[in-house]
């Protein structure tokens, strides 16, 4: 009966998925740039950041309009409020991907070869982002719960990475800057994991109506 | 090709208009004729003597004072009885009765009653009332009560129905009982309907002759109201008949006719005024 509204909700959904895809691509490209030392790719990721920011603003504007015009209640209201929160987290993921790429350019081609822990962490994080967006697309609460559980894995990796970096510094104090850059990058991955968890939590809120702080 | 067709239509239009004008003219002419004829024939015969004395066989003088009084007494007696009965019945039918079928049957019966020729009422009245209380004004009044009951009932009912349902609901919602609701919210709203019905009835009573011929008698005695009601007496209409047919006093008959005509016009005027006044109040 509310055809226009349903169309608008469909558009909203589509835009969130599009933004999610852009974030996935950004973070995936950042990791490739990191592991292969591809400076060009890193530069591309840096530029895509502004597009992601723009999308966030567009989606926010769309949500405010929907709230104004349609006075949504129940699941419609939950979708729109979840959308507002999700795009914030997605935008932060985009920012983090940008930051990682920035550091990659400073590394000037130096890769994380030999730093398996960091690479594993990076791929776990990519999986988390992809899964959280997927959970949103499919409205899959179980998948969202898996993402939330996966955060423990990433956090665990982070602890291990920290230890690794400490030993790197102790072994080679002159290479301290590189070690610190690696630390920053790992921290960014850990933060990306947290944002993916947020996205999953808001998806669960939209579907079930409860927002649990995990 | 268009020319002849429109000419034909034009002639048709003009013809129709002329015919309708003729109808209006005839109607107006009839009414005017009646009015003028009666007044012209009657007014010269209206003297103070005529209006204020009773007929005397000794002097051969004719006076219609007793007839005027009798008419007045019958109007009063009829109204006093028919108003409570008719209004009461209307209130019951509209506000209290729950079986709609029975209400419709009663309403239909009342409609039929009002269409019955008045001379039949006279016959029935004679058998019912005059046989038991002899020919008298009261018998006539009672007959007129039966005749006018449907009118009062109908006009009161119509009036009651114009009171919006929401008023009643509002009053019930405040805890008022049925009678209180009727008395305080419904009845005040339909006073004009009752008055209209009243005036219409007065008109009918004034003009009634056939029913009274059988029941009220022909006497020309000047009485007080109580004695008058208990005795036979002629009303203006009956007197008109008697003077014209049996005594050949056409002058007097026309005088009475003129008086009755004036009264009829006054009654019509009163009805319209009352209706206008209440319509204004309502808006």
């Amino acid at each position, binding site marked *: 009966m*509310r055809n226009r509204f349903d169309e608008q909700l469909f558009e909203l959904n589509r835009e969130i998925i599009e933004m999610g895809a852009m974030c996935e691509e950004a973070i995936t490209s950042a990791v490739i740039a990191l592991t292969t030392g591809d400076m060009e790719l890193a530069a591309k990721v840096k530029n895509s950041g502004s597009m992601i920011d723009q999308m966030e603003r567009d989606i926010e504007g769309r949500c405010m309009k929907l709230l104004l015009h349609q006075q949504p209640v129940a699941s*419609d*209201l939950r979708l729109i409020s979840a959308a507002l929160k999700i795009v914030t987290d997605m935008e932060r993921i985009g920012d983090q991907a940008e930051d990682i790429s920035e550091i990659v350019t400073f590394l000037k081609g130096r890769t994380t070869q030999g730093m398996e822990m960091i690479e594993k962490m990076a791929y776990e994080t990519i999986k988390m982002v992809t899964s959280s967006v997927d959970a949103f697309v499919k409205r899959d609460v179980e998948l969202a719960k898996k993402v939330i559980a996966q955060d423990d894995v990433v956090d665990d990796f982070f602890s291990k990475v920290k230890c690794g970096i400490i030993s790197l510094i102790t072994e080679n104090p002159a290479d301290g800057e590189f070690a610190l850059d690696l630390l920053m990058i790992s921290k960014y991955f850990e933060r990306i994991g947290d944002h993916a968890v947020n996205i999953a939590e808001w998806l669960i809120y939209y579907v079930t109506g409860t927002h649990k702080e995990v | 090709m268009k020319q002849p067709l429109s000419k034909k239509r034009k002639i048709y239009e003009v013809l129709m208009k002329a015919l309708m004008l003729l109808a209006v003219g005839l109607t107006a002419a009839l009414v005017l004729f009646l009015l003028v004829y009666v007044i012209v024939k009657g007014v010269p015969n209206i003297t103070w003597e005529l209006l204020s004395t009773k007929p005397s066989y000794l002097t051969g003088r004719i006076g219609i004072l007793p007839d005027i009084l009798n008419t007045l007494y019958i109007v009063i007696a009829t109204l006093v009885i028919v108003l409570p009965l008719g209004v009461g019945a209307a209130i019951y039918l509209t506000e209290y009765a729950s079986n709609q079928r029975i209400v419709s049957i009663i309403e239909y019966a009342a409609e039929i009653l009002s269409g019955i020729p008045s001379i039949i009422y006279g016959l029935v009245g004679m058998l019912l009332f005059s046989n038991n209380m002899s020919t008298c004004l009261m018998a006539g009044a009672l007959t007129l009560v039966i005749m006018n009951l449907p009118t009062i009932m109908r006009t009161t009912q119509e009036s009651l129905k114009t009171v919006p349902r929401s008023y009643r609901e*509002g*009053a019930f*919602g*405040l*805890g*008022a009982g049925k009678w209180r609701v009727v008395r305080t919210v419904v009845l005040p709203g339909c006073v004009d309907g009752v008055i209209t019905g009243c005036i219409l009835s007065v008109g009918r009573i004034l003009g009634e002759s056939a029913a009274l011929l059988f029941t009220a008698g022909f006497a020309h005695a000047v009485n007080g109201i109580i004695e008058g009601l208990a005795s036979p007496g002629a009303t203006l209409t009956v007197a008109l008949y008697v003077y014209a047919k049996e005594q050949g006093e056409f002058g007097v008959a026309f005088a009475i006719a003129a008086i009755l005509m004036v009264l009829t016009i006054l009654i019509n005027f009163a009805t319209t005024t009352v209706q206008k006044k209440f319509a204004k109040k309502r808006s």
Partner: protein
Amino acid sequence: MNSIISVKDMCLWYGDHQALKNLNVEIPEKSITALIGPSGCGKSTFLKTLNRMNDLIPGVRITGDIRYKGADIFDKEVDVSNLRKEIGMVFQNPNPFPMSIYNNVAYGPRTHGITNKVQLDEIVERALRDAAIWDEVKDRLKKNALGISGGQQQRLCIARALAVQPTVLLMDEPTSALDPISTSRIEELILELKEKYTIVIVTHNMQQAVRVSDYTAFFLLGELVEFGRTEDIFSQPMDKRTEDYITGRFG
């Protein structure tokens, strides 16, 4: 929350047609309960049963148990006039009597035996103040009530209902015939009245239910589908039918 009206297994028939089916609900006191649902779902019929206004309709049959303050309202000993004093009603279309404003408000108290002029003056003033209309009409109490605007007439009707000091106030779409400003004034009034009275309000306007009520009952085809705190019903309805209705997907 204490409940002031309890309904158990109530059914209502108009002749052969069953309009209300197995209703079970507890109306909490000193709060506002909204009854929502599509046209013809029975919410107005239900409301009118609570003060036995349905008695006025021939052919209505009611089964089940309705208790006001624990007492069965259909008991033979019950004085309906008194019940309606305790449970007052405001209708959808403002219906002031064709009398003066004063007499409109005094109608209820007079019906219940108050004739002392000083008392009546006091009652009328208090009721008009409670209905937030005293200032507007205090200089024209003797004027005909039909001469004021629609929004004012409705507030007058609320004053009239309050004059008999009811415990519960039933309101059947009280603002649906009014303009937005009158509507919002009356909504403000209803929120104020909550402190002293229990209010049950039928409304077609979902936003009004959200703005004004503490509890909401959703009716559909004569059944009570869901009842709960308004915030819960409108953020997380438990029944899909409720969700579909309040999101405007039908009805």
